[in-house]
């Protein structure tokens, strides 16, 4: 184990997979000489060269589409979108091609494409640079959606994403890049998709989170402990596939659930989680499921306003209090 940042863990994953499989290559805006907007690909071009670490024009739709074509052509592209906000310029190729090609062509092809993108608010970057858009992709069948919350998961999930055969939206939270954690050094350290993790055990309430909100939930759980409430915290890790079984097992034990996500409240991925809990475990619940998410407004710029719009440990505590 090594104590490294989430950013370094992603960089390690990329290095190891570039070493392991010559079909793997990276392309995106500023991924080469600049080392990536968030320095995730720092230093890779020096080791692997311009052929495998490719700086692209600012052409998101074609970068993703070319990733699809390269994947169909037998390679394993890792495309970086500078931020998820720009994925909206590429959404046609993500939804209409990457996610559909295998199915609509009757299983004739596969698209082993990983699209990495930072996302999330909290840095006073305003409405167009602070979004969490996982729900857009969770809504669309045919593409996996992975959101690691820790350095270890960042490495193991990215390596798994590159090795498996389906297209993946790999969403990294901008607030997590500097966060350190113990990361296995094993080159075959993989975190398979569809395995939610109970990151804190408790008996009174289940807090279901993913990406940065896992850390908010853990802080909230500590605050709740002071009040005598013993919270269990689950990190979903991937939204597609969704490990609802782990969630249900916990909810059946605690009889209370709070779902926390940074996307907008309305139509967010957490709403789907809540719906599935209701459908499968209605009789096990002692209280209505609470959701803590971003307010239904474009992200405001002022830091007080931004904090008011984002989920937080305090808001999670209040949500738990409402049903305790």
């Amino acid at each position, binding site marked *: 184990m090594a104590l490294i940042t989430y950013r370094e863990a992603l960089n390690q994953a990329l290095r190891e997979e570039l070493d392991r499989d010559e*079909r793997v*290559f990276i392309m995106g805006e500023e991924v080469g000489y600049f080392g990536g907007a968030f320095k995730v690909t720092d230093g890779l071009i020096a080791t692997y060269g311009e*052929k*495998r670490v*490719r700086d*692209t*024009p600012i*052409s998101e*739709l*074609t*970068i*993703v*589409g*070319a*990733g*699809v*074509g*390269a*994947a*169909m*052509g*037998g*390679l394993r*592209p890792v495309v970086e979108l500078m931020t998820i906000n720009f994925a909206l310029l590429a959404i*046609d*190729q993500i939804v*209409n*091609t990457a996610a559909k*090609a*295998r*199915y*609509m*062509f*009757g*299983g*004739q*092809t*596969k698209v082993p494409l990983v699209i990495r993108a930072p996302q999330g608010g909290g840095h006073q970057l305003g409405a167009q640079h602070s979004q969490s858009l996982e729900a857009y992709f969770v809504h669309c*069948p*045919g593409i996996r959606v992975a959101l690691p919350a820790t350095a270890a998961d960042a490495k193991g999930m990215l390596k798994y994403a590159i090795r*498996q*055969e*389906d297209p993946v939206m790999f969403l990294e939270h901008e607030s997590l890049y500097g966060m350190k954690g113990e990361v296995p050094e094993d080159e075959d350290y993989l975190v398979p998709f569809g395995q939610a993790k109970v990151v804190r055990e408790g008996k009174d309430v289940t807090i279901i989170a993913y990406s940065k909100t896992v850390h908010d939930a853990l802080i909230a759980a500590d605050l709740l402990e002071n009040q005598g409430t013993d919270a269990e915290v689950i990190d979903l890790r991937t939204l597609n596939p969704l490990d609802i079984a782990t969630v249900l097992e916990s909810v059946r034990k605690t009889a209370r659930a709070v779902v926390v996500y940074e996307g907008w409240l309305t139509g967010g991925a957490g709403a789907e989680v809540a719906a599935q809990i209701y459908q499968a475990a209605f009789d096990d619940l002692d209280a209505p499921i609470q959701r803590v998410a971003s307010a239904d407004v474009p992200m405001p710029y002022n830091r007080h306003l931004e904090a008011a719009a984002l989920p937080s440990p305090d808001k999670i505590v209040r949500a738990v209090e409402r049903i305790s």
Partner: protein
Amino acid sequence: MDIGKELVLEMYRKMHRIRNFEQKIKDLTTAGEIPGFAHVSIGEEATAVGVCSALRPTDRITSTHRGHGHLIAKGGDVARMMAEIYGKRTGYCKGKGGSMHIADFSLGILGANGIVGGGIPIATGSALAAKLAKTGEVTACFFGDGAANEGTFHESLNLASIWKLPVIYICENNGFGEFTPTAAVTSVKDIAVRAKGYDIPGYVVDGNDVFEVYRHTSEAAARARAGEGPTLLECKTYRWEGHVVGEGAFISGKYRTEEEVARWKARCPIIALEKAVLESGMLKRDELDRVAQQAREEVEAAVQFARQSPLPEPSEANEDLWI
């Protein structure tokens, strides 16, 4: 002409196969026997066949919503195509794709595409894969005049130019984007001149002359294989039929004159080929007729195959999404 007799006969066969296939699709759609949108390419056969005849079997293509001709030209099996359009399990996509999503990856056909311009970045990425893996393959990217006004066209030509990718962009300018004349919505008379903006060669080609299309594609493919990058070919042709079969039911008024259609029908690409090879003495009438007859029979057999094929089971709707 530096094209051998066997290749010419093969071109002729494929053009007839396309013409018969498309005519049959039109008739069966009109009769209500097959569902979905039918975009047929009657009149445009020389472009599809001229391009694909200049490619190797391992080269790849991307196609469009008006893609039957491209698929047949690249070697697609008309029976499996027809079965797909009938929605049968024996179709290329097991009945999950339909006319706009037929593909045969074993033949390098990376799929028709229901999004205008959607195939352009895919072809560009396919060419990137060939370049990185040093396979020597080229990718031919079919798209229409309408797609030349999509962002993917401009983004992809730029990318292919800076990376010198082995891709040939084939703009089939058939005169109309759906029901709108190309000239009314396009800044340039010749889309080929847009190549200049991306510092790549661009040529206007008579898209109804299969030999000229073949020659230009062969040159572009040679350039691509030599590492010299992409080429834009604008093949000027004409859509004899409407944008979609049965459009008369939902559009009022005419968007083109009968004289214009007649003028282009007089320039039929199949008759042009016949005329050229009969005059040069390369082929005799009965040789041509035999091939044309075979093409008709193949399409008839394809319809029988499609009709007799089993439908997919409802449970198959949940298959083929993930690996």
